[in-house]
């Protein structure tokens, strides 16, 4: 039995733990530090719930969840959340369509095909993409992607200056390292014997990858994708700048939409009158956003737990 596990120390040691004066104070301070994070969560939930409650006193749940128009300012005023959720879904969908294949392909290459030296060089570069502030991606979505890529490719008439696709493309760039890195870790953790057995039976590398490694690493891959979704849903700058501020139900990625985060930023910037319903809509949408990202993060952790269990 080692001291490293404070919960199991025997009595003598336990008494000796803080025998010097002042050390219990230190423990107290450390506990306070840990309490800060708990308080933070309580505050977040408290603020969101309290202001949302005020919002829902004036706007019925039915309207919020069943109406399709999101029009907090202009007559006829309507608070149906679906246009914002649809906007979020649209950008998320296209971001995943782009990032998941490329990310998984990169993960496969790094994990199964690449020479260890190549991996040592390429992996950090890929991960550097994760350190880029999102406002930089937002700038690119509005300037390069829309002006120099989408419009020449699809025609300036077809592509709105604020469109969901440019945001999705840069969102995909943003989550590429997440998907690639976590999937690669999951794949690398698959035990060699599984692969060796398949090779022994005459499988090609591609077959081993697809039929053996993928399924074995599936939990990790799913975790990666769920985490990426959570990040995309919560991202503000890229969508606020490039996707526009027109709440609407559309599947056309060349049109502008407004996401939940885009709306929240709009209210925050406009300094809308406090205490009014459109200001409180900020918190109601915030609550939805918080719950959605929480759900995805929890799900991701669940899958990470599963893949760690399987092979460790």
């Amino acid at each position, binding site marked *: 039995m080692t001291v490293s596990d404070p919960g199991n120390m025997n009595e003598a040691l336990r008494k000796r*733990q803080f025998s010097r004066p002042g050390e219990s104070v230190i423990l107290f301070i450390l*506990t306070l*530090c*840990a309490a800060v994070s708990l308080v933070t969560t309580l505050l977040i939930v408290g603020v969101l719930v309290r202001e949302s409650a005020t919002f829902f006193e004036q706007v019925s749940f039915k309207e919020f969840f069943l109406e399709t128009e999101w029009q907090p300012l202009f007559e006829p005023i309507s608070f149906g959340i679906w246009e914002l959720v649809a906007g979020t879904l649209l950008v998320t969908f296209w971001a995943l369509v782009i990032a998941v294949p490329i990310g998984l392909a990169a993960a496969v290459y790094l994990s199964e095909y690449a020479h260890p030296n190549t991996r040592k060089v390429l992996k950090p570069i890929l991960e*550097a993409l994760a350190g*880029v502030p999102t*406002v*930089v991606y937002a700038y690119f979505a509005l300037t390069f992607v829309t002006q120099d890529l989408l419009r020449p490719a699809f025609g300036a008439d077809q592509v709105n200056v604020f469109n969901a696709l440019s945001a999705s493309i840069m969102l995909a*760039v943003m989550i590429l390292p997440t998907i690639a890195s976590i999937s690669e870790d999951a794949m690398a953790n698959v035990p060699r014997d599984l692969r060796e057995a398949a090779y022994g039976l005459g499988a090609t590398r591609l077959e081993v990858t697809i039929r053996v490694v993928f399924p074995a690493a599936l939990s990790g891959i799913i975790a990666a994708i769920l985490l990426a979704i959570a990040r995309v849903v919560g991202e503000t700058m890229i969508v606020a700048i490039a996707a526009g501020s027109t709440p609407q139900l559309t599947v056309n990625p060349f049109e502008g939409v407004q996401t939940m985060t885009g709306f929240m930023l709009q209210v925050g910037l406009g300094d809308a009158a406090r205490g009014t319903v459109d200001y409180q809509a900020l918190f109601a949408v915030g609550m939805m956003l918080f719950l959605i990202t929480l759900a995805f993060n929890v799900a991701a*952790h669940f899958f990470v737990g599963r893949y760690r269990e399987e092979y460790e």
Partner: protein
Amino acid sequence: MASESVRLRAGGAVVRRQFASRASRYLFLGATLLGVSILGFLAYDTVDTGASRLSLDFLTNYPSRFAEKAGLRPAIFGTLWLMLITIVSSIPIAIGTAIWIEEFAPRNRLLTIVKINLANLAGVPSIIYGILGLTIFVRFAGMDRSLLAGGFTLALMIIPMTVIASQEAIRQVPPSLRDGAVALGATRWQAVRHNVLPNAIPGIMTGTILSISRAVGETAALLMIGGFTFIRFDPGPNLTDFADPAGFWAGLEESFTVVPIQIYAWSIDSRREFQANAAAAIIVMMAGVMALNLLAAVIRERFRRN
């Protein structure tokens, strides 16, 4: 009888499968290179657009209605002071939390809750932290749209990731160090302070620096707090304020702007000339962020050799 050498050649399905396997290698390599080259391309495009604006003037000028004159001066001050406030308010708490979790907490339900809570907080979108800061610091605590409010908000945002990184660093320290100290008669805290922490510090610093570089680039939360886009003074305390606590505090209560907010403002400006300003500001900010990441990597390497 001489035996003919028979070349064994695979046929049919096997050839296809092997070809597919070899071809797929290039497909996967291509995807990886695509990801990697995007970074290079973005860097090239930014430098191409923004290099013309880069000059000492750009760093020392205030925003202006003339694109050639508009500069980053207040934003740079704002970012530096904001980072100072964020570091001072978040790092001690984060390290303390990590030490508590790894060394002192009883292994019970409370500990699990704290750990799960931290993991969740790390995934909360930054705009929610912005709402939190707006409600608690700006409005409730009356700090208004100040450096203090911004700094505390960012501190709350980066504490979870700093804690997790610090936990990792502490866990890397071999248990024998700790146990040996206690066996020689040290109290628990003595063991931590003199044996565990010194060895964990490099890892903790690396994690801290990476969290700071995340805070440097944060935009949405600060826009919610109320960072301005058009300021013509230097946010933060002045030189003379270092001797004057009241003045110093007043300096921290000033309104502010930061580099990412300027990038945002210049990006959406309908006058095309300002795009060059946005690109130049991105170069400045990325230089800072990369310097920080480099510092973290250097620290990690240097201390690893021992």
